[in-house]
């Protein structure tokens, strides 16, 4: 099986062709922002030149379609129908989109505490309009515990609403009503566009004279999803570019450390990601995009305004790098001195004109009363120190994540890295220095390796399911599947049963989506006895299972 990975980036669209664990070819074309499809096709064609044509092909695509639509505010007009019940006043959250509140509510156990009002339901037609060319999101508080209100409203809208409809519980089984509202809103607003994209690829698939069997879409968690699935959950495709790079590092690194730090140094920013026990860390709640807080599972990345082309600020206290970009480095014809100029002048890398870099350093050095080589060294030192501080801040932040059990407080998880893996053009200069600073071994991946496209190709399916069970209420809820069932023998429905139940469901779902042999594991589970008046009346279980996020290790 051959796999083509394509990552549509801000500047370039990269492609990689993998056969098994071997990188066969790489390609790079400029991204055409006016027509993303044409640059994607160009990258595909370029890479196909090197395709020997002796086996089936699969395409794994990291697109910026939904990301751009959200960042640029180009989604269709979308309204939210919310069932907030009592609690935080929704109006005080000031969502930047219309939210219509309905009465009725589900409590924290998933019980209906107050019903929907049929009169208000009927009135939605006047509130929402016909929906032509628009979209609506329906979100209730605690809908992950009991989606029935969302389902009733959804069914009502189906009758007459002509726009796209997104229901909150289908997008996430996790708690956080404001984030679920935002997630469903964004999902609804880009769904139409994604549907067009899916249709287009389906057409293309039929017309190509190559054995392209499947197209998969990269997600923010670094995994893939089926093309068809992406039309229902386009929100999961956001921020897949940074995730793909992280996956690429995992695929390419030769380090065998359980915990390591990934440092991707670019011209404008440096991106940090963290691997713990062989798996990349996710954001605690979900992706944040353009100020929108979502519940979309996402690789945790921290972007620093620190890059080869960053501005330099000189003061008596020392040198500060960034956070803004200076423009082009002087060695490439720019105006302001940058870290790249220091690197070039010291002949640590060859970028443009060394003499111009030296000249600019001399000018600045004279003002400061030092030799230019010393100034260049100090710039590199300042860059490294700032980066090391940011790394420390990140680990401190991760280590402050609350713990809710005595066991965890006594033995907090060890997140600290035992190695640094770096990539990006300035990485060969800065990573060894950073590693020295942190007193860790390091590896620098070659710049030409195309980690983002390789990451896109090496990524594997991720799919998750949540199960909430309440044996006193004798009820199971599988929010992402929109299903609720009665437990027939509540007394015997223990955590082990809950676990095997969600694993079975997930296995079935995975097979239906074409993932035959993925490993399923439980990411999170909890179980409580419910005691009322000194008597155990039932148990409450929550189990979240997913396909193990894996990356094929590749040889560059």
């Amino acid at each position, binding site marked *: 099986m051959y796999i083509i990975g394509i990552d549509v980036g801000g500047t370039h669209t990269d492609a990689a062709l993998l056969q098994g664990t071997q990188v066969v070819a790489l390609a790079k074309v400029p991204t055409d922002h006016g027509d993303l499809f044409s640059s994607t096709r160009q990258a595909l064609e370029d890479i196909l030149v090197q395709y020997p044509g002796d086996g089936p092909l699969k395409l794994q695509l990291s697109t910026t379609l939904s990301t751009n639509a959200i960042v640029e505010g180009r989604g269709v007009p979308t309204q939210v129908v919310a069932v907030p019940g009592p609690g935080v006043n929704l109006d005080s959250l000031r969502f930047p989109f219309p939210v219509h509140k309905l009465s009725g509510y589900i409590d924290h156990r998933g019980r209906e505490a107050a019903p929907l009002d049929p009169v208000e339901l009927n009135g939605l037609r006047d509130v929402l309009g016909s929906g032509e060319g628009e979209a609506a999101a329906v979100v209730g508080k605690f809908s992950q515990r009991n989606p029935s209100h969302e389902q009733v409203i959804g069914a009502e809208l189906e009758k007459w609403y002509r726009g796209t409809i997104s229901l909150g519980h289908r997008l996430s089984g996790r708690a956080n009503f404001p984030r679920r509202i935002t997630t469903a809103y964004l999902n609804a607003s880009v769904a139409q566009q994604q549907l067009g994209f899916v249709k287009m690829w389906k057409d293309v698939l039929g017309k190509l004279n190559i054995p392209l069997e499947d197209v998969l879409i990269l997600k923010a968690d670094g995994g893939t999803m089926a093309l068809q699935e992406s039309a229902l959950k386009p929100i999961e495709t956001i921020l897949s570019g940074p995730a793909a790079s992280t996956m690429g590092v995992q695929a390419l690194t030769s380090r065998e450390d359980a915990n390591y730090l990934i440092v991707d140094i670019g011209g404008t920013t440096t991106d940090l990601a963290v691997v713990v026990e062989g798996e990349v860390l996710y954001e605690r709640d979900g992706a944040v995009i353009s100020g929108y807080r979502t519940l979309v599972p996402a690789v945790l990345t921290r972007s620093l305004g620190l890059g080869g082309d960053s501005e330099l600020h000189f003061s008596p206290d020392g040198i500060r790098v960034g956070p803004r970009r200076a423009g082009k480095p002087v060695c490439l014809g720019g105006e302001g001195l940058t870290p790249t100029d220091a690197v070039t002048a010291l002949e640590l890398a060859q970028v443009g004109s060394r003499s111009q870099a030296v000249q600019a350093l001399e000018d600045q050095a004279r003002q400061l009363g030092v030799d230019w080589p010393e100034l260049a060294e100090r710039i590199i030192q300042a860059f490294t120190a700032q980066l090391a501080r940011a790394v420390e801040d990140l680990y401190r932040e991760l280590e402050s994540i609350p713990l*809710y059990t005595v066991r965890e407080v006594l033995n907090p998880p060890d997140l600290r890295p035992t190695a640094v893996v770096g990539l990006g053009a300035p990485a060969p200069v800065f990573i060894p220095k950073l590693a020295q600073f942190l007193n860790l071994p390091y590896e620098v991946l070659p710049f030409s390796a195309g980690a983002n496209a390789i990451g896109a190709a090496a990524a594997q399916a991720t799919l998750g399911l949540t199960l909430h069970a309440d044996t006193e209420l004798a009820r199971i809820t599988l929010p992402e599947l929109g299903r609720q069932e009665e437990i027939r023998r509540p007394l015997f429905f223990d955590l082990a049963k809950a676990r095997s139940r969600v694993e079975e469901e997930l296995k079935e779902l995975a097979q239906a989506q074409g993932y035959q042999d993925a490993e399923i594991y439980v990411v999170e589970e909890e179980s409580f006895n419910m005691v009322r008046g000194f008597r155990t009346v039932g148990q409450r279980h929550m189990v979240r299972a997913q396909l193990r996020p894996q990356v094929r290790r590749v040889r560059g």
Partner: protein
Amino acid sequence: MAQEPVVGLVFFPAFDWAISPDHPERQERLLYTRDQIQEEGLFDHPRIREFRPRLAEDREILRTHVVLPSLERNITESHRIAAGGTIVAADLVVDGTVDRAFALLRPPGHHANRFVHGARGFCVLNNEAIMVDHLRHRLGADLRVAIVDTDAHHADGTQDVFYNDPGVLHISLHQDGRTLYPGTGFTFERGGPGAFGQTVNIPLPPGTGDEGMLMALEEVVLPILEDWRPDLVINAAGQDNHFSDPITNMGFSAQGYAKLTDLLQPDIVVLEGGYSIESALPYINVGLLLALAGLDYSQVEEPGGLRRPIQSRAITKQVEETCREVLQLWKTREQADLKSEFGPGPFYERRRQIYYDTDNIYESQQEYIRLCPSCPGWRVVYTTSTRNQEPVAALLLPWQPCASCRGEAEEQREKLQGDKRLTQIIWQEPA
């Protein structure tokens, strides 16, 4: 206070700890609170920041408590985390990391006395008291701290710890001790000779609702605070005044708690009791957090809020009378004749029997307080219990003792060291 206060939340539900499987202090107690806060998105709110608790160290605990026969024999890690988490909350405020803090954790502490032979009222270590002493250790003994305890049960432990401590004003609002554990907290309990009048008890009749609680707050508590001018106000926020609480008989609502918080404007809030874990705590805690952060709590309402009993007129009248009495006692506290309260000296003697309901222990205590004109006076306490039958003596110095009290206490220690009946002589000197 900042216009848009940032609240530090130290949330520690101890999901793997219980007194016993079906005890009210069990794993499940803060489960629904966690669910509600999480679903409301408050862990994620820009004005609410969550922090990790830590373990309290021996010296932090022993600055406040005398634990018999030893610390290890009485506490679990969970107690250390609750006390340490409360200290974290206080430090966040003092460091200026946040404007206010809420230690939403368990197990609770306000029934724990200075002397600890075991657990009373589900408490072993007094979280607030340990925190207050930590703050004085950090910031100096001059710090003035007011504790307003709004748990339905009288905060007898906290009252005991600070009973003779002029640096602390302790106000407890609770269901009348004639009708509820621990059976104390009457208006005539006004503090020891070194801090007379600074123990303020406001017993409320069973059935008191939002109206009565808020009346006591506005007409008694706030004026007293205004008068005493503390550097820090701490709210020991028990949540068992709620009308749905299974072990008390009060009529408070989630809205009432939020309003109380809004009026009191505490710097640090520490959770105490509250055992209506499904119907009350999730809503009370959301309301409390919103009020602390200066956010809109008007829509917070527990299910069945309409079933809340109306406070009767008879109760309102009774609350009014208590308020008048307490305020009068406060205003006249400096005119009180200490000689008639505590005798002519040189020592005031107090003998007590203390029952530890959770562990079924009886303690017998004999205490002598030196009536000193220049400091709160040194103390010697002799204690035995059905668990620790060998008598123990403890010499307690106040914060900032005068030289002669220190000298006398040292002399007494030497004398006691010759006494073969005593198994331990403990010297406690806060600093």
